[in-house]
């Protein structure tokens, strides 16, 4: 872990690397060096993209993108220290413009994750081959997983207008 930390800090500028446990490494970086960092780590053997996630820090006006990488086994039967690691790479993007570059050409498995984030957080991944809706059937003014999307108000507006049985009975009379 320490060796990887040294390698990364000598190759990239402005990384903030923390090692909270034996098996986790959290790297915060600026968005410009994200792609080169990911491709560097992929060449270093971290070929498994476990997750792309997003955090909405509404008070700071930022969206935080989180890429979690791990390594497949180099040897089919021997367990090594490298597979136990998870590398969490984070970067901030602006909440208003919310644009970022796609990594589908680096990691094929990124495609559905980016589609989901596009739908749920409204992030446009430039260069993505098909940024079509994945799960939702209608469009929302505020993407539903952002913090300012009020689920209670949405439920009231969508389903609250259905009259109760009592009201319907009264209306019939």
């Amino acid at each position, binding site marked *: 872990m320490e060796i990887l930390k040294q390698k990364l800090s000598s190759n990239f500028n402005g990384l903030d690397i923390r090692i909270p446990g034996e098996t986790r490494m959290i790297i915060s970086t600026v968005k410009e060096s994200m792609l080169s960092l990911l491709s560097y780590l992929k060449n270093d053997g971290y070929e498994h993209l476990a997750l792309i*996630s997003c*955090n909405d820090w509404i008070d700071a006006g930022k969206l935080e993108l989180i890429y*979690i990488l791990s390594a*497949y086994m180099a040897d089919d039967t021997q*367990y090594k220290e490298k597979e136990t690691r998870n590398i969490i790479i984070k970067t901030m993007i602006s909440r208003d413009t919310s644009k970022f570059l796609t990594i589908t050409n680096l*990691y094929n498995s990124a495609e559905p994750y980016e589609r989901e984030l596009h739908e749920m957080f409204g992030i446009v991944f430039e260069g993505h081959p098909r940024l079509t809706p994945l799960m939702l059937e209608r469009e929302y003014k505020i993407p539903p997983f952002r913090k300012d999307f009020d689920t209670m108000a949405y439920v009231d507006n969508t389903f609250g207008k259905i009259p109760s049985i009592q009201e319907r009975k009264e209306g019939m009379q």
Partner: protein
Amino acid sequence: MRELELYFGPQHLGMVGNFSITLKVEGDRIVQADANPGFLHRGFEKLMELRTWMQNFPLVCRINVVEPDHMELIYSMGVEKLAGIEVPERGKFIRSIYCEMARVGSHLFGLWAYANMLGFDTVANWAMYHRDLLLDLFEELTGARVYHIYLRPGGVRRDFPEGFTDKLVETLHKIGGKVPDYNATFFENSLFKQRAEGIGIVTREEAIRMGAVGHTIKATGMKYDIRKIEPYDAYDQVDFDIPVRTDGDAYSRLLAIRDDMIESVHMIFKLIDKMPKSGAVYTKTPNPFKWTIPKGEAYVRCESSRGELGLYMVSNGGDKPYRVHFNTPSYNHGLTVLEKALVGESVSDVGNIMISLYVVAPEIDR
């Protein structure tokens, strides 16, 4: 030849669960497949941001209908990591036994789905019956048959009832005694072999490129299993093997699943032998209504019956999670790997390949 667009599911006999695939076919051959999830999307991750740490358990277990136990486990692990809670020794063993029971039950359910889809009704009924025996045990242990909510941050809700392990051993022997019959009627049956061999091949390179985990990668010969890679609970205290196959087709995947089930049964026996005879089963946690967890983030992972299951969790120091994101194995298998594996296959094998990839739709939608 003319291309035709074909909608496969969600209402289709070969489709398990609420999921659909849009196929482009040329005659009987599939040219292109587009997975179309979302029929079960309930926004659980958003709803969890509005509920306290303990209130989330009823939601968490509904993410995977077939196997809610590993969902409970991963959520508990996430909260434990953030709050810095340790599980007592006996609690760890009970958790592992419980999760292996869930794995056997889930594999039996998968076997039911596969056999039923291919028309092997006898095998399907056996598998369902044997799963039901396990559900009886779950009912005795937790009070519920499907959604148990038995695990909690810090351990398990209560200890095993008296005589439970004996009943468990007896039931597992009953299921294990049927394995030769399963082999003769299903796994070694030439009718089944002809349907499954050489179908839906996922090679090692493709599997790595698409982020496959679980049996999809085990069927290409890699012993990739989180129980071994990053042992949690009591898995570092027992000796077990990870069964693998090398061909990468639907048949290899199913045999890897069968061997995994048998290995799980053996593992339960070993865990029962090694389990401490007495002791606490959970660590006390604060009042759930007032429980706040310090600021921080955690990524935890475990091996569910479908493969690597992960959870990214953020706390901002409040009484509710700030962000919860599940990395479920069916997500990659159902969206990326399935689209690739279907190309070039026949329409009659769509359900076959989908079930062999072990896709369960609610896990994708969440």
